[in-house]
């Protein structure tokens, strides 16, 4: 039986294929090299989870900001000089509580509020997470190291439209009174996706 996929024995390597499309874009005057450098800067210096961490730390220490953040996330993050791409129409901030765990997934592709919480980690984009966390939320979180007692309710948010989500994790009790700067240092990307506590 011949191979039935459209990926054949003589398929060019993925690097060769990237080189080819980049060369085409270069030829057509799209200046891909310049953009690749800009993008590297964006991905490594602008779209970092430290953005979201600052948002979380401010929400923990400034009740008025937290109200504005929960009411309109997209507007509130601008107060910290943060922005979102045009096609991220809305930022919904989901507040975790001791008895409530919010978790974000994108089952159809892998959308995230990447300019705020950083580009998604590898596992977030994998078929396993996408297929399973909507249906087996408690089991999957446990496998990932977050073993929630039965008393904690779970809310899964499947980001299938143009709204983006971020989780506002529970502030660890031992950090009450810390400065905003110090608090921001403990906030992880995974806690803002909702698969880890702090």
């Amino acid at each position, binding site marked *: 039986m011949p191979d039935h996929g459209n*990926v054949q024995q003589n*398929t060019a390597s*993925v690097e060769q294929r990237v080189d080819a499309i980049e060369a085409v*874009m270069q030829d057509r005057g799209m200046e891909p090299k310049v953009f*690749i450098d800009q993008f590297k800067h964006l991905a490594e210096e602008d779209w970092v989870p430290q953005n979201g961490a600052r948002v979380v730390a401010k929400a923990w220490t400034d009740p008025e900001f937290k109200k504005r953040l929960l009411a309109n996330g997209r507007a509130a993050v601008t107060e910290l000089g943060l922005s979102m791409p045009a096609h991220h129409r809305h930022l919904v901030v989901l507040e975790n509580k001791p008895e409530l765990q919010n978790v974000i997934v994108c089952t159809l592709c892998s959308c995230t509020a990447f300019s705020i919480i950083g580009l998604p*980690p*590898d*596992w977030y984009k994998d078929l396993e997470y996408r297929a399973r966390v909507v249906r087996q939320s408690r089991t*999957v979180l446990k496998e990932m190291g977050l073993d929630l007692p039965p008393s904690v309710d779970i809310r899964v948010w499947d980001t299938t439209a*143009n709204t983006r989500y971020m989780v506002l994790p529970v502030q660890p009790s031992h950090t009450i009174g810390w400065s905003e700067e110090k608090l921001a240092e403990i906030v992880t990307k995974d806690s803002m996706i909702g698969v880890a506590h702090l």
Partner: protein
Amino acid sequence: MDGIHDIGGRQGFGRVRYTLKAQTFHEPWERRVNALYSLAVKLGIFNMDEYRHAIERMEPRHYLSASYYERSLTSLATLCVEKGIVSQEELERRAQGHYPLSMPSAPGRGNVSTRQKLAIGDKVTVRVEHIPGHVRAPGYVRGKTGVVIGISPAYPFPDAHAHGIHADDEPTYDVRFNAEELWPNSADAAQVHVGIFESYLEKVA
């Protein structure tokens, strides 16, 4: 389309390969691909809905076996071919080998004319529709009933926007479902919230 990409709730997958502080990129070419498709969107060569749909149109075996960034690459290359920027032959000549692209697109559709504005608290059912083109409602909510708990700003209707046909903007609603109603006796207890375009919903009396 009822494609292989629509895997929410599908069983048989193993454990999530979770690691602490997991990376986004593992190979230099992955960063380049992410930049190149973003550049194409920025230049107006295609929009994000066309980009997503071209990923969904990948041959199912290719979709499942490809890494995330190989899927991005395949969408970028497919759309560059479909938009007339380059031929598959030129790509294959330059890549010195076979260059797998996505399968052809079925026709899209416009906004649903009978859609209704909804309010928070409305009980809604997801229409039982099998759209051959792009659609952003995951299969697992089809025909299921939930409650509107949030309203998001209007955005071009993806079923049209992914196919280059006229798309009116319409709001999306955060609809809350019970996991145990989505998969009776076969799900962990949870509320599952899905962002759903107005055209996909019908208000329940």
